[in-house]
């Protein structure tokens, strides 16, 4: 059926949610229309099980978000770079969190692919190209799939740190941090990997 109950129930849930918010906090939506001032940019996975605002019990307006397959920051990807630019330079977020997660399908696929020798030809699908760097990372170290999830987060923290956006912000003296977290789906818990980078950290080995 074209318009099945899944969508109808999302819209119905939304109406109820909006009514509940309006009742509990009458000025909330009007306040939202005035602008946004999130302090955090979340770069996470598209995985349905990791909705940033639900798992952190955050409100609309708290977290600026980019979610893609396996929480990647590719140096030549305009989509993620545009988000980073807008978040850091326009909105002035003070924290960029890269959030990987256990049971990541993208990471698992790369781990599996890394068990075979690399193909002589370059990947020819968007997903293949998108996951090529992560597959390379999997090949570099002999690690299990969950170790790859962590190594991936560290690599993306490095990628964010090296962007012109972050370097430029730090040159201007902006107090903005980059953090790496892993969300453990089995427990619903976020774990800080302790790899945070801030202004003045200079050459950081993450």
């Amino acid at each position, binding site marked *: 059926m*074209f*318009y099945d109950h*899944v*969508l109808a129930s*999302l*819209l119905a*849930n*939304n109406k109820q*949610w*909006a009514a509940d918010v*309006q009742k509990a906090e009458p000025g*909330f939506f009007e306040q*939202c*229309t*005035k*602008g946004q001032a999130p302090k*955090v940019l979340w770069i996470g996975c*598209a995985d*349905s*099980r990791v*909705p*940033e605002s*639900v*798992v*952190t*019990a*955050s409100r*609309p307006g*708290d*977290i600026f*978000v*980019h*979610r*893609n*397959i396996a929480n990647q920051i590719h140096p030549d*990807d*305009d*989509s993620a770079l*545009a*988000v980073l*630019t*807008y*978040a850091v*330079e*326009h*909105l002035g977020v*003070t*924290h960029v969190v890269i959030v990987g997660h256990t049971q990541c*399908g993208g990471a698992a696929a790369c781990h599996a692919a890394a068990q075979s020798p690399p193909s002589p030809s370059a990947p020819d699908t*968007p*997903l293949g190209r*998108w996951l090529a760097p992560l597959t390379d990372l999997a090949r570099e170290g002999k690690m299990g799939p969950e170790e790859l999830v962590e190594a991936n987060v560290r690599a993306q923290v490095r990628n964010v740190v090296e962007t012109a956006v972050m370097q430029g912000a730090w040159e201007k003296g902006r107090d903005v*941090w980059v*953090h790496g977290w892993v969300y453990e*789906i*089995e427990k*619903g818990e976020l774990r*800080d990997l302790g790899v*945070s980078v*801030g202004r003045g950290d200079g050459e950081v080995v993450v």
Partner: protein
Amino acid sequence: MLHDHIIAQLLAQNKEWAQVVENTDPGFFERSAQGQEPKVLWIGCSDSRVPESVITASMPGVIFTHRNIANQCHHADDNINSVLEYAVGTLKIPHIVVVGHSKCGGVAHAWATAHDEHPHRFFANWGDLIPFVKAGSALERWLAPLTAIARAQPDLSVEELGIANVRAQVLGVIKSKVVKKAWEEDQELWIHGWEYDLATGHLRDLGIAFGPEGEVAETV
């Protein structure tokens, strides 16, 4: 201080949330870990005021999510195309919703650029640090297609441009290789355009919908 109160607060809120969920629905996380079967792919804006799972009161596992500046679907973008490939090709998600919203900064910037106006008046109260998009930046490139839509339809107001944008991105999705292939293989897949009104908190179906037989005249 390395971890100011914001980060500590988020982590603390998460711990509390996880406990509440486990108490209310024991085994929820264990079941979550077995896999995901979302029925919806949400292509929305990165805007902090439009968190898809909060505004639809959805639990983790319901909505596969891609959020970027101004909910774009660019033809040659590996980022969104890999999301589509995984969502449609691997997870066999039957519904894609492209969701725009009122007061979108990306839309406002594109409108202002197209009308040779300084965007400042849109952002005066918005708390934005700089009200202009740097020439030659990734953000400028990213907003180019939306700016082109604004130029092509100069009579549209900013909010009307936002709606036109949703329709254009829906068309972008249906033209993707992934969607075309899915329909060729008789896969159940529909693409819809929605709008979120910040002023009311309401999601609205714009009545833009496409399925295997083409555009669907009526919804629901």
